[in-house]
């Protein structure tokens, strides 16, 4: 067994530098690597390119890095929850590459799977297709999209083991398994860390081969953006 366990967040983030490209799992605030983001927001790293479906909210998630202007460029699909983001983007302080959500997911997976490019119909005829190759398949136009990789991919799982295997819970899974595949170094923080052999090998979502470092996360806040309920 190849042991991926690291004892603390310093070891987990060893090698992190300014001007790198990072991927962050999560959809909205669900399934984001809270501990790692918080730690990054306390460090002197900037000029970052961040690939993440969303950009957090003003005081949480990637909003923390935005506030400190650590991010040079965001690659996302939806950023509507963050006023500071919109301000930085409209003022030109922040470069933004907006990508259809399914294309973003598939580009990350492709990066991890050694597929350099694929065709998708999403975005044909829109701004997204600008300067991209168009090709007709089955009578329908598609555009060519390239894969994405990152210097570090940061993901968050529910359970993990020392071999780096990960299991996610509910919709906190989202982009995490795809970005885990696409990081040159993938760092996972988990709510529950087990010795290898404790997790059922049939139930693992991310095989440990995609994960270089795994650490125990703590104090998960798990903020809810839209608390919607019904009465009993």
């Amino acid at each position, binding site marked *: 067994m190849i042991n991926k366990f690291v004892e603390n967040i310093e070891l987990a983030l060893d090698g992190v530098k300014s001007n790198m490209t990072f991927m962050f799992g999560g*959809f909205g*605030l669900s399934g984001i690597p809270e501990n790692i983001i918080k730690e990054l927001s306390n460090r002197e790293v900037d000029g970052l390119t961040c690939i993440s479906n969303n950009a957090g909210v003003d005081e949480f998630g990637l909003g923390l890095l935005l506030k400190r202007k650590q991010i040079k460029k965001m690659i996302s699909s939806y950023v509507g929850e963050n006023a500071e983001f919109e301000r930085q983007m409209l003022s030109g302080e922040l470069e933004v590459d907006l990508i259809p*959500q*399914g294309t*973003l997911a598939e580009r990350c997976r492709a990066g991890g799977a050694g597929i350099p490019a694929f065709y998708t119909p999403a975005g*044909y*005829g829109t701004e*997204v297709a600008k300067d991209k190759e168009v090709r007709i398949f089955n009578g329908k136009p598609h555009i060519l999209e390239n894969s994405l990789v990152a210097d570090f991919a940061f993901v968050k799982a529910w359970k993990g083991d020392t071999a780096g295997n990960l299991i996610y819970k509910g919709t906190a899974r989202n982009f995490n398994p795809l970005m885990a595949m696409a990081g040159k170094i993938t760092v996972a923080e988990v709510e529950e860390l087990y010795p290898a052999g404790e997790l059922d090998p049939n139930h693992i979502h991310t095989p440990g081969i995609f994960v270089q470092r795994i650490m125990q996360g703590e104090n998960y806040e798990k903020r*809810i953006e839209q608390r919607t*309920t019904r009465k009993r």
Partner: protein
Amino acid sequence: MALDKNQIAKRIAQELEHNTYVNLGIGIPTLVANYIPEGIDIEFQSENGVLGMGPFPFEGEEDPDLINAGKQTITTLDGAVLFDSAISFAMIRGQHVQLTVLGAMEVSEKGDIANWKIPGKMVKGMGGAMDLVASAQNIIVAMMHTNRLGDSKILKKCNLPITGKNCVKKVVTNLAVLEITEDGFKLSERAPGVSVSEIIAATAANLIITGEVPEMII
């Protein structure tokens, strides 16, 4: 009288077909889930990774690890399944989801839709909308007929950057049901008490009107 948002949702619910998978966008489309006709089995897909979405949780039972694409806390029903974003869009891009209902800022008579960007002003991003409109076999738009300034959102050509081309099949607004045909918008129903001339007045695109236009049954 013009419909309210719930009535728009209720009218759209009449379009639901038995044994189909449906993706509902944020806003009015989400309300459609409250009006599923009797005897119709539907499973709702949310592109952040869940199929078989149920109603909102009871107070105190919200789970931050269980949300929909609008970031709202949800529940799951028997037979539900969770998955990652690549599989979610495999369902969408691969046309396994039969119907998509979503909001729009503009719809053109060619079936183009704009709902993700107002240049220089509002840039929230397209989220999953571009993938959805590029692949769904059936796309129904739920929206108000006019914007806050009173301008028609039913246009000959979209002014805003589009989300997808030639994709919308039907539009249900507070005033009318419009089908998109090869020749443009066909006015197929009007809201109860709303006259054809009122609809024409609120619409920037040409409307194809053949014979009597029936009132919606809500």
